[in-house]
């Protein structure tokens, strides 16, 4: 066992974690922990763009961006946070350019911008070009640029360290983490004044997902086990255009550049549902339109997919602006997008919910906003909440850089003022016991079987359209799976790179999260944003204009609560596109 001491430990080396690290580098003693190599982080898979009201190609204002964010989130967004997001996006994007990010350029040499779903001019009048982009690999450029800055600033990276516990004092102050070094199987205690969870989302809870295999929500689940609440877990975004059966993302930029989605009759049906924004309606709506078309028998060949058509775009636009996504269609489906439609279906994409934080990235413990001392979160792991019930395209990248930066700055203030809190006695005990139990069990349930059943039931009953009966079934199944997990057995008993073990640990985290998602879905008896209840089809502002919070109780059960949302500027209205 190894012991380390740092002013700050950042868990997750994606956009949010690295952005925070860069604020602290050179000023504080910090460590960045990743279960991968940093450039493997899922930020790198983001494609289409990062929005900021630069107004480089047409008139735009951050107030319009804020409005779109609030409306896109079906008014569940905290508007103070949305204001921060939209205002600071401008500086954040410029900061990325200053760091060297190679954005595409306008003829006069400025950062180019393009259209994206739900982003509008003048409070909903029509699409606006707000998404700054680098071909269709904007996330790749962000992760590369931020990692490069990390190297430049000599950040200490703990690569291939798997988070196995978060440490708190008896008073609830966060004081470090425990990691499992993949290469050696050794446990590391990292004692810290401040801890940032920037470990990303948990799309792997679902069968069809755009998320990396590493997207298992470890940081969120471990915090939850220590009594930290989770917020808005019922809001999980299904991106309308995932490659059929594979779930691999085909960026909204394809529609931003002029692509349309067609049913078996060749109809570009989005215009029928959303006359103003058409194919650039927000993702929750597009996913439901597709679901509806398929249900009414207009899927291709009667199957559960439709076609994304970019064949009418000039070939040079496809090559210059959409090279990667069209390549995915060629490689994985054998389809030539310049000539034919790309088979697509909704794919589990993004968690709006997560660890509740204030706008400084500090995790909060209750509806009143009491801060958990020393404990931070940013990025997809966190819920600020700027995405509310449905995130707009490009806003995840904005969220990463804006709130990763804010969290880093607040951590720095915190580090100046506080001392190290004492570690609990035997800090690694809980993690060690969990690991030794898995390594020691001779036979039992197979991890892959439990995981597959979980992913299927979450896809069948907890995805685009939900009902009470389906959710109850899912709840019962997840309970059985949690019991089965208590007897899970693995085959690899070694210490060196035991990914059999870490996959089991990840499954344990995902089961906890699946349980909270289902609970949130059952309780929220309305439809809002990405949460669509067929048995409660209307939005119910009277009872549900509020965040949900779920706590784990000491006996392993769950307790739920509501937290009021913050409305500063835009009164909730019916959401039309």
């Amino acid at each position, binding site marked *: 066992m190894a012991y380390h001491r740092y002013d700050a430990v950042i868990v997750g080396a994606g956009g949010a974690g690295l952005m925070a690290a860069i604020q602290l580098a050179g000023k504080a003693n910090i460590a960045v922990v990743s279960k*991968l*190599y940093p*450039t*493997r*982080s*899922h930020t*790198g*898979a983001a494609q289409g763009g990062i929005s900021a009201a630069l107004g480089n190609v047409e008139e735009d204002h951050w107030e319009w961006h804020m409005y779109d964010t609030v409306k896109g989130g079906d008014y569940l967004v905290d508007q103070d946070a949305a204001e921060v997001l939209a205002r600071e996006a401008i500086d954040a994007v*410029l900061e990325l*350019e*200053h*760091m*060297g990010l*190679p*954005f*595409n*350029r*306008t*003829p*006069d*040499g*400025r*950062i180019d911008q393009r259209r994206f779903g739900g982003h509008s001019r003048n409070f909903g009048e029509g699409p606006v070009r707000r998404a700054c982009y*680098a*071909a269709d*690999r904007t996330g*790749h*450029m962000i992760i*590369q640029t931020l990692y*490069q*800055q990390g*190297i*430049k600033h000599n950040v200490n990276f703990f690569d291939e360290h798997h988070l196995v516990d978060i440490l708190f004092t008896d008073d609830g102050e966060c004081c470090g983490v425990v990691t499992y070094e993949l*290469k050696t199987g050794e446990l590391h205690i990292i004692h810290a004044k401040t801890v940032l969870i920037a470990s990303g989302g948990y799309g792997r809870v679902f069968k069809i997902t755009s998320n*990396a*295999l*590493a997207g298992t929500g470890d940081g969120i689940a471990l915090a939850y086990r220590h009594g930290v609440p989770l917020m808005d877990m019922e809001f999980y975004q299904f991106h309308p255009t995932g490659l059929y059966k*594979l779930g*691999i993302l085909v960026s909204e930029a394809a529609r931003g550049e002029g692509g349309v989605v067609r049913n078996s009759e060749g109809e570009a049906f989005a215009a029928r549902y959303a006359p103003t924004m058409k194919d650039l309606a927000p993702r929750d709506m597009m996913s439901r339109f597709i679901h509806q078309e398929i249900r009414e028998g207009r899927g291709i060949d009667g199957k559960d997919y439709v076609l994304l058509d970019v064949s009418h775009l000039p070939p040079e636009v496809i090559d210059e602006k959409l090279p*990667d996504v069209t390549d*995915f269609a060629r*490689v*994985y*489906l*054998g389809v030539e997008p310049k000539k034919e439609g790309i088979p697509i279906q909704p794919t589990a994409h993004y968690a709006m919910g997560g660890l509740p934080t204030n706008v400084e990235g500090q995790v909060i413990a209750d509806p009143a906003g009491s801060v958990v001392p020393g404990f931070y979160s940013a990025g997809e792991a966190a819920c600020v909440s700027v995405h509310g019930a449905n995130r707009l395209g490009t806003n995840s990248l904005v969220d990463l850089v804006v709130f990763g930066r804010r969290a880093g700055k607040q951590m720095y203030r915190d580090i100046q003022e506080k001392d190290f809190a004492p570690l609990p006695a035997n800090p690694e005990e809980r993690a060690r016991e969990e690991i030794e139990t898995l390594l020691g069990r001779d036979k039992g349930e*197979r*991890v*892959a079987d439990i995981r597959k059943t979980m992913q299927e039931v979450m896809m069948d009953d907890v995805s685009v359209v939900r009902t009470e009966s389906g959710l109850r079934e899912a709840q019962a199944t997840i309970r059985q799976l949690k019991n089965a997990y208590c007897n899970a057995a*693995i*085959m*690899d008993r*070694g*210490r*060196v*790179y*035991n*990914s*059999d073990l870490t996959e089991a640990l990840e499954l344990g985290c995902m089961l906890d999260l699946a349980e909270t998602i289902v609970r949130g879905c059952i309780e929220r008896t309305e439809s809002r944003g990405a949460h669509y209840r067929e048995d409660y089809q209307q939005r119910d502002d009277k009872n549900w204009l509020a965040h949900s919070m779920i706590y784990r109780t000491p006996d392993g059960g769950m307790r739920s609560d509501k937290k009021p949302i913050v409305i500063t500027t835009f009164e909730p209205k019916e959401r039309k596109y």
Partner: protein
Amino acid sequence: MEVTLRIKRYNPESDAKAHFEEYRVDVEGTDRVLDALNQVKWYQDGTLTYRRSCAHGICGSDAMRINGRNRLACKVLMQDLGKRVTLEPLMGFKVEKDLLVDMEKFFDAYKSIKPYLIADDAPSHGERRQSPEQRHRFDDTTKCILCAACTTSCPITWTNDEWVGPAAVVNAHRFIFDSRDQGAAERLRILNRGDSGVWRCRTIFNCTDACPRDIKVTEAIEQVKRALIYDQV
């Protein structure tokens, strides 16, 4: 279809040396090699070890030798490989376990060429200007995902520990030809060194063949060489 995977295995905790083991898997033609590996790991032998994450050719985790060629396991479909598929770890780096190699040397080489923008002229407001043509100049090398497929396909890497390798040169190129960067001279000096620099390159094109992002790696290396000879950036 039924396919036999012939996988080179090595467990440092129990094996004196590497050996092949065979596994039969039932796959769809459109399954990725990674899907076949997962099938083995999840349902036959949990000890099989490899890196993977995004599963669609973006994160760069799962480069390996597939029927003798460096490829990403998530970007090659089973239908393109035949009934017997041989999977081995990348060559030139120490094998840690099965298909997983030590990447430290690779990242050290990457860091040695100063892979970050060197510029002290950020404007106080707004972005630096760069024309689409200037931006296009280094577009190809911005695609690198640091998977190491190129560097470990290079025969020079196999025999020369000093050589920074194609990936490091690609990333140097990305900055040397960026109109905003001021560190070209520094990087070129590093790449002009005898044992480690670009002159070790023998223009074999293995790297270009191996790149899963279709980067013209050899061309990028040649452009760096020309920059050194003709002082052209």
